């Protein structure tokens, strides 16, 4: 078939379809653009543009689920993340089944086989064996051990999303001390997924403040700030973070350590924001609308917060989203090295620290699973950040 006939076919066959779709699209665009574009706020525009970024939308959805799970960690996880059951130490992940080959029939309700610990008398190797005759059906909204949601006194309960009546359910296996990995990962996300958000919040405020001072006042202050930023940026991240987190006293309570780790992680992040804010301030100072406001007698504070900041903070936030992965990574790495949060705390990095010995890895490779969640979170934030940046870029067309 020649190219021309091919093209003709492409053109002729779905012409009607293309036309209809195009009409619909145009109608929508006219509705949206014609009427709403005129009144659309910056955030609405960003939302429309972001919504077209499929991968970013999917990532945002995934992150939404992960954060929900983090908030309701006690409810989502079947067990207390700190309770250990030695008899189930290093139990592998169980397979969830619907089909029972022994009975030869399907069950609508998923189930797992009971597992029992076996000790090889010669090698002293511990193995777990499935008892194919004993099914444990997974029940939803079961009563489990008592918990306090997010440690808030009046939110006590024992309702758990799922569980089994006897034996154990371990979706992702157990660690060396028989703690349920799934429950720990869900609880660990409270720390691992929030350091980044809190970190960029701090970076944002510090960055806007210092960058704003630098750009607005200029002069010697600007020179000094720029030098300091340059110097901080020149220091390799991990060594700096390592050195700073070593300084945190061991006896500090968990929350304080957590907060300081976030501060340490933000020590790099704010520099990027400050740069952008400074640049924008320098260029905005000469923009007509700022001059107009100035001539109107607007005060410096009003000038900055009412006129200058709103014109670019969406862009800054979008850029900051791309910093979240580095912060998640930082927390994980520091905790992994034993420099960040320490053992009673649960974070993905702390969990990975348990997996760093090759003997453990060889016998229980599922203990690397927190790493998979780090991976997913980092990727998702990357996609969301990319989508946000594209959407917030004032120069891209709709």
């Amino acid at each position, binding site marked *: 078939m020649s190219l021309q006939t091919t093209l003709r076919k492409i053109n002729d066959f779905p012409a009607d379809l293309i036309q209809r779709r195009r009409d619909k699209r145009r109608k929508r665009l006219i509705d949206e653009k014609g009427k709403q574009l005129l009144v659309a706020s910056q955030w609405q525009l960003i939302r429309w543009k972001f919504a077209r970024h499929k991968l970013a939308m999917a990532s945002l959805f995934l992150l939404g689920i992960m954060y929900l799970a983090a908030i309701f960690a006690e409810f989502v996880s079947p067990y207390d993340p700190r309770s250990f059951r030695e008899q189930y130490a290093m139990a592998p992940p169980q397979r969830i089944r619907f089909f029972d080959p022994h009975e030869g029939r399907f069950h609508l309700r998923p189930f797992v086989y009971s597992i029992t610990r076996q000790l090889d008398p010669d090698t002293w190797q511990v193995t777990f064996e499935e008892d194919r005759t004993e099914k444990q059906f997974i029940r939803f909204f079961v009563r489990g051990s008592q918990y306090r949601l997010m440690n808030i006194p009046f939110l006590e309960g024992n309702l758990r999303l799922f569980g089994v009546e006897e034996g154990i359910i371990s979706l992702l296996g157990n660690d060396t001390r028989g703690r349920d990995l799934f429950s720990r990962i869900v609880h660990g996300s409270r720390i691992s997924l929030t350091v980044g958000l809190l970190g960029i919040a701090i970076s944002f405020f510090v960055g806007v403040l210092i960058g704003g001072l630098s750009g607005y006042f200029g002069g010697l202050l600007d020179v000094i700030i720029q030098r300091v930023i340059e*110097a901080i940026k020149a220091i390799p*991240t991990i*060594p700096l973070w390592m050195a700073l987190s*070593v*300084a945190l006293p061991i006896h500090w309570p968990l929350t304080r350590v957590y907060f300081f780790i976030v501060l340490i992680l933000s020590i790099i992040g704010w520099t990027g924001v400050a740069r952008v804010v400074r640049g924008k301030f320098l260029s905005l100072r000469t923009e007509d609308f700022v001059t107009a406001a100035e001539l109107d007698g607007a005060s410096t504070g009003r000038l900055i917060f009412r006129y200058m900041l709103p014109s670019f903070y969406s862009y800054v936030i979008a850029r900051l989203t791309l910093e979240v992965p580095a912060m998640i990574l930082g927390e994980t790495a520091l905790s992994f090295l034993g420099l960040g949060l320490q053992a009673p705390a649960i974070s993905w990095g702390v969990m*990975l620290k348990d997996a760093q010995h090759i003997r453990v890895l060889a016998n229980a490779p599922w203990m690397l699973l927190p790493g998979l969640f780090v*991976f997913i979170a980092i*990727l998702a934030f990357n996609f969301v950040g990319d989508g946000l940046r594209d959407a917030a870029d004032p120069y891209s067309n709709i």
Partner: protein
Amino acid sequence: MLDFLMRRMLLMIPTLFIVSGISFFVIQAPPGDFVTAHVQRLEDRGQIVDREAIEAMRARYGLDQPAHVQYVRWIRSMFRGDLGMSFDWGAPVSRVIARRIPNSLIISLFSFLFVYAVAIPIGMLSATRQYSVADYFFTFVAFVGLGIPNFLFALVMLWVVYSMTGQVLIGLFSAEYVDAAWSWARFMDMLRHVWIPAIIVGTAGTAKIVRVMRASLLDELQKPYVMVARAKGLSRSHVNYKYPFRIAINPVVSTIGWTLPSLITGEMLVSLVLGLPTLAPIFLRALQMQDMYLAGGIVFVLTLLTLLGTLISDILLGWIDPRIRFSSM
């Protein structure tokens, strides 16, 4: 160009000063000092240390002086190339660093080569065959590379190598060369080992550079000069090779500035996971021991390397891009 370079070098001086200040502050920050930490360790072992000995020790290391005096002393000796003494090793910091830094540099250098040797061709392929199977494949691989933290990658590799070969270590040297002096044979032996850590360290960077290269080339491919060159009668491959490829390289070269620090950072984490004899384990130990001059010295040297990397990338960029060369004149 020369002017520009001179200005860049002069600007490095205040930066280095500030970095030295930050380094010093950072290593001063932990409560106590090496002596308290040392005494603590001795007491943990049941030894009794008397006050006078402690104070004598402090005076010997100059730790009884106020912080700013210590800083000035540190800076002053640094001008003589003396980074101070390592309490823990009982040797000059510069000698401790010098012994380990070749390994760090070699890993970083190889991962650097790996990053660019792999990323540039893949980026070119992805851009010239946009939306092809190859493009989607490499984009996917790049995303995976971007998402996996290199220490985690190292951990996974450790596990994979162990479950495949039963070997625990991915070292830098074979057993017979571990403590040997540098020789040709030792160097060759290292080449046989260095690629695993180099690839692990380089993966995330490769992923980023692939994306930079792809975006930059896609941008250049639709510039008018490409059509002009085609209108002159050049073949498409000749056009691509001579113009957009050549120009798309510029933003890639400018990434050297941030690739180097991230490689150095990555190298530290990977070395710690794999137990490689580089600066990283020494640094971690120095931090834990509060061996402040050693820790500070390492931070300082790493920063110096980073700054040198940025300078090199600036020089390269000025060399290959006349726009930069001329604008700074």
